[in-house]
């Protein structure tokens, strides 16, 4: 891809090309992620948090952050590969620690679900407060299918997504017809309904929940520990790797969707429904597409999540969990998948790591979100204004 003159910073940092800075940045984040997931004492966690704050300030001041975003824009292929490589390195380094890997995989799966929500309200402007319900539909589908059918588990992942989409179709009519707060109440009602239904219903285990069978691909059971060079690793390595694949695929789909004419349609529906309709854009069709796409991602992620934790109960899919997903998207910056990734990591890992304030973590977390929204309402990484076709100004 050719360089966009508009985006180039006036001076490159330390005279290095943007790509080099980008790669250094990915390496630093990888090491940081490893240290953070590995950290056990409270002092380590706090020191790492302070280090992150200093790093962000230093990066912004010295202009390195801009170089990183230039690298992301111009060399997206290499950078994406580097980031996936970074995640794999972290998995490798943590390969014997159950809990750290469980957290890492949870981050990846929450990221997948949150990307779906991102398409729904970051791009299309449809609120969905039932994210955890669609996540739960995926998980329950996985539970029923692994226990009662012989369908290959990899296919069950897809079935989780399809089930979420099908149940989502029931909501399509009210969601598409309503706007704003009215649309919010439809999804909120569904989230409450879903959880209550699971609790009172006997077929799906009631409040006790269900056991979920494990994932297996080509006869390789994911609940057995892989051994590499004579070292036995945690069985979560399997799930972490598959989670990485899932998140990467979801990420790719989201980015492609955003850059395509479909993404353009979604953006225009968000910005002005009436004007879009006047220009011949099928508003209803765009909304149905975004809603279904998001639900499929949430359902698929939920199916793998259920298989990973191998036991699911209605309390894992409450309205508060839906709020957590919404908070991830808003904190990251609506419509920016990278922001969603950063926010997913913060929202999932931070409360687990701050055991010292275990009792107070929900209080602190809610206060943190309030402060964040008051002083930086666009989120951590606000979405940039889209270029119609990336790089098109350079064409003669």
């Amino acid at each position, binding site marked *: 891809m050719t360089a966009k003159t508009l985006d180039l910073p006036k001076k490159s940092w330390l005279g290095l090309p943007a790509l080099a800075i980008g790669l250094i940045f990915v390496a630093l984040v990888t090491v940081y992620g490893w240290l953070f997931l590995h950290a056990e004492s409270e002092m380590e966690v706090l020191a790492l948090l302070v280090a992150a704050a200093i790093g962000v300030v230093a990066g912004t001041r010295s202009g390195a952050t801009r170089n990183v975003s230039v690298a992301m824009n111009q060399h997206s292929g290499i950078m994406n590969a580097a980031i996936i490589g970074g995640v794999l390195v972290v998995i490798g380094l943590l390969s014997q620690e159950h809990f750290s890997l469980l957290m890492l995989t949870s981050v990846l799966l929450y990221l997948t679900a949150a990307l779906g929500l991102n398409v729904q*309200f970051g791009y299309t402007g449809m*609120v969905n407060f039932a994210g955890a319900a669609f996540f739960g539909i995926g998980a329950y589908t996985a539970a029923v299918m692994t226990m009662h059918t012989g369908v290959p588990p990899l296919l069950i992942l897809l079935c989780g997504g399809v089930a979420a989409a099908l149940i989502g179709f029931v*909501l399509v*009519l*009210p969601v598409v*017809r*309503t*706007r*704003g*707060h*009215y649309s*919010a*109440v*439809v999804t*909120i*009602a*569904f989230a*409450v*309904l879903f959880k*209550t*239904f699971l*609790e*009172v219903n006997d077929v799906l285990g009631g409040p006790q929940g269900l056991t979920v069978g494990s994932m297996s691909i080509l006869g390789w059971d994911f609940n057995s520990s892989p051994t590499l060079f004579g070292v036995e690793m945690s069985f979560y390595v399997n799930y972490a790797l598959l989670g990485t694949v899932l998140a990467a695929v979801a990420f790719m789909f989201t980015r492609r969707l955003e850059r395509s004419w479909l993404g353009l349609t979604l953006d225009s529906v968000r910005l*002005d429904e*009436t*004007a879009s309709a*006047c220009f011949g854009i099928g508003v209803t069709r765009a909304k149905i597409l975004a809603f279904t796409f998001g639900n499929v991602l949430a359902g698929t992620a939920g199916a793998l999540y259920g298989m990973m934790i191998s036991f699911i109960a209605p309390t894992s899919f409450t*309205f*508060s969990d839906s*709020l957590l997903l*919404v*908070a991830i998207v*808003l904190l990251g910056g609506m419509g920016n998948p990278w922001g969603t990734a950063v926010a997913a990591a913060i929202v999932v890992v931070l409360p687990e790591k701050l055991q010292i304030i275990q*009792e*107070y973590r*929900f*209080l602190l977390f*809610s*206060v943190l*979100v*309030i402060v964040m*929204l*008051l002083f930086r*309402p666009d989120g951590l990484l606000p979405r940039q204004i889209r270029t119609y076709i990336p790089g098109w100004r350079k064409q003669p």
Partner: protein
Amino acid sequence: MDIGLLGQYLANGIMLGTMYALVAVGFTLFFGVLDVIKFSHGDVLMLGAFTGFTVYLGMAGIGIENPWVLVVFVTLSAVIGTAFIGAVIARYLVLPLKSAPPLNILLITLMLGTAIREAVRLFFPDGSNPKPFPSLLPSSSVELGNFSLRADSAILVGVGLAVIVGLHLLINRTRLGLAIRAVAQDEETAKTMGINYTMIVLVTFAIGSGAAAFAGTMNGLYYNEINFGMGLLLGLIGFSAAIIGGLGNLYGAILGGFLFAGLQTVGAVALPFASAYKDVFAFAVVIALMAWKPTGLIAERTSDRV
């Protein structure tokens, strides 16, 4: 099913409906003056119930025994204290955010609700366990066949309905109500007519929060138990009620509240499946209603301006 049992369910439904309507009125008032949804409303209600409970403990501690004195003071202090808290939230959290995207306000107030809930759980003595709310009203009952009308529920429903009528009169018959309606209709014009905008907004939030605190106390007196999580579901139901009625409309909120209570009662009694499904049924009907009437039963009068 005999007629006595039916009466029992009817009485219960009216009780619930009054409570829901009081919560929904708050949502609709806030939306009227500021066009925002304050989702912490349910937790403000819970705070009201806990304020009342604390006052009760204090008064019982200094030896006041008369239940009538207790119930009046408990209710009044809950309503006034919560009204004040509501105004403070409006002044420092909602007013500064007036022009923020609606989703952000929704999330901030939701998080505020979580913060209130957690604060009560952590800082109220033994706050994570349910508290036994005293039954201060006489519990004697009138028996009519199978139907027993308990005096306390009759009093609660009576006072609750009186509060709703009072709110209606306040909004539609007084100068304050006129000012509130003016602000709701057009903020700019109201300001130029010499209405103290900030003041009216704060008063509206105080009224709404006071109504919620009344509902919270009512809930406590009726079920004799309060806990830190009671506000979440009541808030959600109140919000749904305000929405199915049509936001910004007082009658819509009342209608919605009673409709929701009716749905729950029907779900528990008249339908073939187990009564545990009553919430599932009620929320499913809410979703269906939204599909049929996308802007509520009593629709807001709006038009698209391009």
